[in-house]
């Protein structure tokens, strides 16, 4: 009999559906039937579909979606033991891969290994060209590495879109006895879970990229600053770092090149503003994560006052492939001004939620329908939030906007961290605005008055609106606050509150007006008598 491999999709999302228990149960059953030598059960990361836990049986290439231990038993007893496919659990490969008719061109650069390798096994990473880019880079001059990254057109995937090669070059140019490379893995944007899945599914790609960055800019120490709540990512990263040290990809004299690099994981402690790069550096220094005044920027004066490169997880994960395949290969993907791919996180009221990597320039509609299979339950689409909480809310009329670094400037649609959150017609725009502002109010670090007070006032007015007690003056005041706060705030958090708020008001002005003039909520969600405030409190 040919050996059989069973891949079980285990990621943060499928764990919620019992994936871990299923794996244990599956292994036990396989052992009970004495099939250990024939059947290998592997945990793999996201296979992309979340209606149940996705399981792939190889070499038959059959996909199952399992929801219970009984389903696991069926697969073992029927498929593995008797070689009979269990049809009622079988899912169409097309539900794993995007529907044809939208011709979604999934291109996997940063997600290439996710789901294909065991993230805890460094050998599997190496088998897929892992650490080849590092050895190639170490044979190049640091300037050549930087030039390759610069020529590729890679820009930051953490939201701001700054050219990565340029950032490295600036850091390389500063003379200093010590420099640092920092990975921003704080991923706090509601609706975003891509960095988590990358770190869980392919931790070595981030480690390899950071080491390459260290070599390019002349840094000997790196930190990965990661959300404390991301237990699986932390675990996988720590294991990966340990293995990389053992194999000589980290530590002293890497691959005999004379270059040394150390890497440490630092846990965040739950503050959204720590995703802002200078606040993050403060936090690594052990202080409250309040943003610093810029300039000076981190390449000049960063961690512990030393020149520092700081990049997002997804940005880093692109680097090894760029070094291996060259800048022109990378540039050939995406749009002229936005090279490469973007990982999108699709959530909300759609049929299929999850993560998908697509070339830059893909439209909102393609992601929503091609990957997401459209709005759930046949409801009507009301709006889509793109880019994260500091991003934009758009109406269905803007679905054909291509998403890249120009979409904000050209169409007022934000790319941000790649969130696509679909919201159907059962939701109230004012209520969504309140939820959004409550987040900002809670996460405002309090360092500057405009943001601290502006977010508080905005919440108060919105709360009044959801109680149907606000007036038209309140609405005008709200718009004014949004603009004033954005203008006067110290950092990107306060500076961006006008984007979501004004996009909601502008797209759904009639709905806001109805709340203040007719004291009516279009979907009957807001009611006069005490509607509970859902404040985040510490």
């Amino acid at each position, binding site marked *: 009999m040919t050996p059989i491999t069973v891949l079980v999709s285990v990621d943060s999302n499928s764990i919620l559906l019992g994936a871990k228990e299923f794996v244990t149960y599956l292994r036990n059953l396989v052992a009970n039937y004495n099939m250990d030598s024939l059947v290998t059960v592997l945990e793999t990361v996201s296979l992309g579909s*979340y209606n149940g836990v996705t399981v792939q049986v190889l070499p038959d290439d059959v996909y199952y979606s399992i929801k219970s231990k009984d389903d696991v038993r069926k697969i073992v007893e029927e498929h593995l033991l008797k070689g009979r496919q269990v049809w009622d659990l079988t899912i169409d490969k097309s539900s794993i891969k995007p529907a044809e008719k939208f011709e979604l061109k999934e291109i996997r650069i940063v997600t290439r290994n996710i789901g294909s390798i065991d993230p805890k096994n460094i050998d599997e990473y190496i088998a897929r060209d892992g650490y080849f880019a590092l050895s190639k880079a170490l044979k190049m001059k640091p300037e050549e590495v930087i030039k390759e990254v610069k020529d590729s057109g890679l820009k930051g995937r953490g939201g701001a879109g700054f050219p990565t090669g340029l950032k490295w070059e600036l850091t390389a140019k500063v003379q200093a006895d010590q420099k640092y490379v920092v990975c921003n893995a704080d991923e706090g944007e509601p609706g975003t879970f891509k960095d988590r899945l990358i770190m869980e599914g392919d931790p070595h790609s981030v480690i390899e990229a950071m080491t390459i960055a260290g070599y390019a800019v002349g840094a000997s120490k790196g930190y990965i600053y990661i959300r404390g709540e991301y237990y699986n990512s932390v675990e996988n990263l720590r294991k990966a770092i340990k293995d990389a040290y053992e194999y000589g990809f980290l530590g002293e004299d890497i691959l005999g090149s004379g270059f040394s690099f150390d890497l440490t994981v630092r846990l965040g402690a739950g503050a959204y503003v720590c995703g802002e790069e200078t606040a993050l550096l403060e936090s690594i220094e052990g202080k409250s994560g309040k943003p610093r005044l810029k300039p000076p920027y981190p390449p000049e004066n960063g961690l512990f006052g030393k020149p520092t490169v700081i990049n997002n997880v997804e940005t880093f994960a692109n680097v090894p492939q760029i070094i291996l395949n060259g800048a022109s290969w990378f540039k050939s993907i995406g749009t002229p001004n936005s090279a490469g791919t973007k990982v999108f996180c699709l959530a909300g009221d759609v049929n299929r939620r999850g993560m998908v990597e697509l070339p830059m320039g893909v439209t909102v509609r393609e992601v929503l329908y091609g990957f997401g299979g459209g709005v759930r339950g046949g409801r009507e689409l009301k709006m889509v939030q793109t880019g994260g909480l500091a991003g934009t809310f758009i109406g269905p009329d803007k679905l054909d906007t291509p998403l890249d670094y120009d979409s904000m400037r050209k169409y007022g649609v934000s790319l941000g961290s790649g969130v696509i959150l679909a919201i159907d017609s059962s939701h109230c725009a004012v209520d969504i605005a309140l939820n959004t502002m409550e987040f900002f109010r809670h996460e405002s670090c309090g360092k500057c008055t405009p943001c601290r007070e502006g977010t508080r006032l905005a919440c108060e007015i919105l709360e009044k609106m959801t109680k149907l007690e606000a007036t038209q003056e309140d609405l005008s005041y709200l718009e004014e606050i949004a603009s004033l706060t954005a203008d006067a705030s110290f950092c990107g958090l306060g500076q961006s509150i006008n984007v979501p708020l004004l996009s909601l008001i502008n797209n759904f002005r009639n709905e806001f007006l109805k709340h203040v003039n007719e004291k009516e909520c279009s979907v009957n969600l807001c009611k006069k008598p005490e509607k509970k405030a859902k404040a985040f409190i510490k």
Partner: protein
Amino acid sequence: MAVCERHEELYEELDSYIDQVKDKPGILIGVLHKAQEIFGWLPQEVQEHVAEKLNLPVSEVYGVVTFYNHFSTKPKGKNEIKVCLGTACYVKGADRVMDRMLEELGVQLEEVTPDGLFSVHAVRCLGACSMAPVVLVGEKDFYGKVTPDMVTKIISAYKRGGSHE
């Protein structure tokens, strides 16, 4: 007193950790993580102790503790129930889950149940949005696609004293 002795042990555990990491730069947050893991929360005495061991002003430690959501200056229930109110969860009805959770346990947000077993907390996105709405009990027990009607069942799994399973 038994309680004090137990405390002594906890302090010893913390001190041995501090001694290991003391010389690393910027380690305060790491130490506080450890302290909260050991004590469950960060009472003032613990904060003062950390300040003394790390040679920092108490005010700095206090400033850091109050800045970060993860650190708590109030005791928490044995099982910390976190309900995500991030946007993706919110649009999938997380507020109704929250309401039911509080009602079922008869507490306010952040308040500990009289038996000490539970406290309920509102949190921002937990990075599991495709399973929205999401509830996290303790550090690792995730529940996805939670409806208000599932609340009783989730709670009851922890009522028998132990954590689930």
